[in-house]
């Protein structure tokens, strides 16, 4: 195929999900010529028009709007003595694709971590006696203060029309919200979503046991919303087709509803779909990038020169692209030298399913984020040091989706045939869940690198993930099991089932957890232990910026999207205010 060289642009953005669309609009508003390249396809309203998304088999079972393993497989192993094998079918996580990325079909829980979560290393040094935690744990602080990042959380929350109850307004604790949240400069933009029966029951039981529940902060909006870009988000109608589905009602904040329509009007922005970026090309001195190479829809190899390169693909593929392009030194787990690939982390889930013969939960009526949660079991808010582990979880009861194939059935119900149908008839709409979403710390020997054996369809090495559960995370699971068990007992169901990781459990790649993979190209204060500075700028190649979950040095219990939005907006502001005037490292090491 032909080799094409395009006209130079100010900014090339690789990946048009949340991070890519936010970077694009912010930099285009500053007058820069911005061109975005998206590996997947175009995805626009006609694809989501009612009633097309109401198809559980296509979207929830067959992952209709996800990337396929054929396109973006990674290899996985438990430890560095093993040979990793490729993911031929998604299980624990499932990356998005196309315009909007996973932001098009996320669950839309939009929540901040606590100030302690962001300064975890400082907390550990203050609260834990030496020797209590595992020696190989490598947690770090995020390289900014709460005061620095707070305005960007709020800005992203305005973009999304965040709906929920305010818990801490400028230091004042307010009823109905999360008393553990960091001080907010402004209240939530919109009121919380409506509660469902499971929420009410969970809230009552948790409150009785001394916890502080509050409505899940949501980017499925509760009222008609117009965001700072002028884009509109419609009030959610609780249709039940949410996580893993595109919203048929313009109700979920996504790159499509919150950014793209305003962005597409800008004459200095353009984008191309089915454009697969394979490499960032560096100048000879390796200090700056001169552009990117991608393959277009016709298979042509295209060079797109650019003054600034933004890598805004999913976390795993940002790390891979850095490794393939020689941006930053690859991490070596033996010597602990190098930065690209270190501090990879995932998360764990679990919980209880409670069955009640006499209660109708109307589980078909739900937004992805419908639910109540509490943050009492997060670092700094309970006696982690006394219990001998670091971490926590948000403990929540989110309205289970009422789509029939996803309906929970009591243990022992056949999974097919007449028995399955009878079980479904008897138990559909009669169950609720209490769930956990946990932290996951980073460790010396948990990391990402390029696989020596497996390659993609272009012959480039796949990304290799070396990951398994550590004792710290399994101890946390045991503690959470007790708490969830007590709440369940309080609710007194007719029957229930529990699912928690036992001590000694291995990572199960086959069961879905969540696509909250983080780290691998983390932000920090020290170029020896981080790939990016606090403006998501590569320490080594100063015109490359890498927004995404890859920047988290470990995973907190809060869902990642609010933080990805905030750090991306902070980086965009730094580019506009400082980098354009004086291109070079924004932080002196």
């Amino acid at each position: 195929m032909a080799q094409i060289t395009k006209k130079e642009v100010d900014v090339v953005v690789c990946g048009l999900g949340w991070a890519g669309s936010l970077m694009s609009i912010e930099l285009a508003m500053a007058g820069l010529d911005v061109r975005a390249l998206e590996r997947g396809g175009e995805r626009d309203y006609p694809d989501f028009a009612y009633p097309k998304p109401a198809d559980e088999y296509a979207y929830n079972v067959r992952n209709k709007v996800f990337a396929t393993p054929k396109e973006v497989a990674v290899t996985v192993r438990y430890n560095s003595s093993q040979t990793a094998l490729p993911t031929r079918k998604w299980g624990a996580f499932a990356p998005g694709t196309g315009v909007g990325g996973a932001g098009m079909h996320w669950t839309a829980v939009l929540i901040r971590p606590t100030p302690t979560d962001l300064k975890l290393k400082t907390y550990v040094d203050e609260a834990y006696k030496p020797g209590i935690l595992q020696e190989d744990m490598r947690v770090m602080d995020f390289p900014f203060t709460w005061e620095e990042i707070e305005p960007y959380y709020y800005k992203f929350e305005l973009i999304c029309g965040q709906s929920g109850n305010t818990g801490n307004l400028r230091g004042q604790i307010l009823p109905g919200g999360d008393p553990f949240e960091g001080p907010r400069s402004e209240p939530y933009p919109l009121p919380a979503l409506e509660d469902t029966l499971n929420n009410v029951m969970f809230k009552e039981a948790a409150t009785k046991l001394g916890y502080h529940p509050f409505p899940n902060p949501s980017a499925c909006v509760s009222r008609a919303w117009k965001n700072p870009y002028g884009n509109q988000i419609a009030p959610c109608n609780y249709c039940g087709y949410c996580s893993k589905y595109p919203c048929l009602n313009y109700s979920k904040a996504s790159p499509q509803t919150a950014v793209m329509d305003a962005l597409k009007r800008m004459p200095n922005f353009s984008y191309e779909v089915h454009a697969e970026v394979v490499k960032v090309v560096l100048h000879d001195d390796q200090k700056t990038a001169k552009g990117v190479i991608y393959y277009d829809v016709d298979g042509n190899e295209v060079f797109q020169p650019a003054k600034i390169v933004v890598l805004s693909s999913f976390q795993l593929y940002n790390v891979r692209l850095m490794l393939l392009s020689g941006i930053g030194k690859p991490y070596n787990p033996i010597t602990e030298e190098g930065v690209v690939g270190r501090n990879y982390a995932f998360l764990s889930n679990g919980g209880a399913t409670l069955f009640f013969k006499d209660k109708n939960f109307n589980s078909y009526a739900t937004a992805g984020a419908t639910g109540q949660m509490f943050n009492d079991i997060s670092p700094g808010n309970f006696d982690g040091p006394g219990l001998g582990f670091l971490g926590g979880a948000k403990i929540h009861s989110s309205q289970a989706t009422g789509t029939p194939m996803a309906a929970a059935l009591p243990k022992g119900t056949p999974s097919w045939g007449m028995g399955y149908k009878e079980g479904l008839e008897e138990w559909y709409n009669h169950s609720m869940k209490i769930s956990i979403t946990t932290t996951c710390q980073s460790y010396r020997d948990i990391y990402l690198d390029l696989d020596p054996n497996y390659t993609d369809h272009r012959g480039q090495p796949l990304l290799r993930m070396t990951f398994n559960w550590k004792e710290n995370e399994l101890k946390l699971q045991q503690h959470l099991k007790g708490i969830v068990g007590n709440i369940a007992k309080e609710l007194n169901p007719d029957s229930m089932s529990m699912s928690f990781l036992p001590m000694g459990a291995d990572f199960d790649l086959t069961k879905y957890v969540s696509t909250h993979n983080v780290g691998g190209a983390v932000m920090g204060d020290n170029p020896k232990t981080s790939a990016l500075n606090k403006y998501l700028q590569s320490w080594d190649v100063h015109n490359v910026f890498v927004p995404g979950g890859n920047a988290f040095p470990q995973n907190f219990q809060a869902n990642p999207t609010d933080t990805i939005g905030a750090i991306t907006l902070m980086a965009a502001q730094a580019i506009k205010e400082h980098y354009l005037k004086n291109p070079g490292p924004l932080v002196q090491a």
Partner: protein
Amino acid sequence: MKLKSLLIANAVLLGSFALQAHAEDEAQLIKQGEYLSRLGDCMACHTVSGKGDYAGGLAIESNLGTIYSTNITPDKEHGIGNYSEQQFSDAVRKGVLPDGSRLYPAMPYPDYAKISDADMHALYVYFMKGVKPSSEQPPETDLSFPFSQRWGMRFWNWAFTSDKPFQPIGGASEEVNRGAYIVESLGHCGSCHTPRGLGMNEKALDSGDDQFLAGGSLSSWDVPSLRGLPRWSEQEIVDYLQTGRNDKAAVGGEMKSVIEHSSSHMTDADLKAIAAYLKFLGGNPPLQAYNVQKQQATEAKLTAAKGLSEGERLYIDNCGACHFVTGKGAPGIFPELDQATIVNARDPGGLIHTILAGAQQPSTEKAPSTLAMPGFAKRLDDDQVAKLATFIRQGWSNNAPAVTKDQVAEVRKTLKGE
């Protein structure tokens, strides 16, 4: 010697000031003319997307046959590059071309007749110097006899047009008069919103007559009266014209293009003037009043979802997700169905068309979201659409006649590949 060179220098300086001032005047005129062309919505008819601006060639379906818009770029061969200012003015204001032939009144010259001389001048400068020439040759308009006889338009013009310039409304504020000028002249709102007479003429051309802007009919859509717009506040009129949406309604039909190409580009002051003028006009037709008992009864029945009629069930299955059981939709996003003009229109054509083909908001500067309603033509048959539309026309406060499946079939025939 010194003095002399100083004088020369001064003269040169003054000369260049004069030139610069002239260039600035012209740039200012071009800018002004460009804005006026937006007020006049010249682009809607004289531009086909993908071809050059104002290169013409848009097919305009009329009762007489298909009329093609012309190239009005300053190209000397294919456009209007050879027009003098007087010839340009005669074409725009009188519908007379330099060779004496007559334009069809698809070109709204009966309204444009009221454009002020100063505005005509700015428009001329813009079309001569601010528009890129295009050598595009649009198809010839070829109507059947007797409409092919353009000379006949002479008599139409004699009977139905006026060469009276714009007359300010005595006693009204400057703002109302600014609004009146835009609406009556460049805005040519009357060409759709004023009822047409037997000769397809607008029955009235200015606010002196109660028929002016009293509503009309256009390709089976009832065109609403603009006189006073009693359900909308002035701000809601401004929002609608600026963005195609307000807290009650969303644009549909031909008006979408007007908002996209014309009114969304107007200044806030001009939009406010238009709103003030429309509010100033009296003679509103009787309205569908808000009926709280009836509204609540419909809401309660849809909420309980027991003993539903087929129309009610179809509403819940297809419409309720966005317009809700209240029929109120969501402000600025999903339009209200309760009391809506399109729902209660005498002719249900607009409502049927919207159910079958859907609708989509234009992207405008102040409201970029291109919110769409899907079309239900493939999902619902004529009988179902009739039952659904009948429910909508009679649910909540609404009280309009039932819709028949034959009416739906008629509208379905007009859908183009939708």
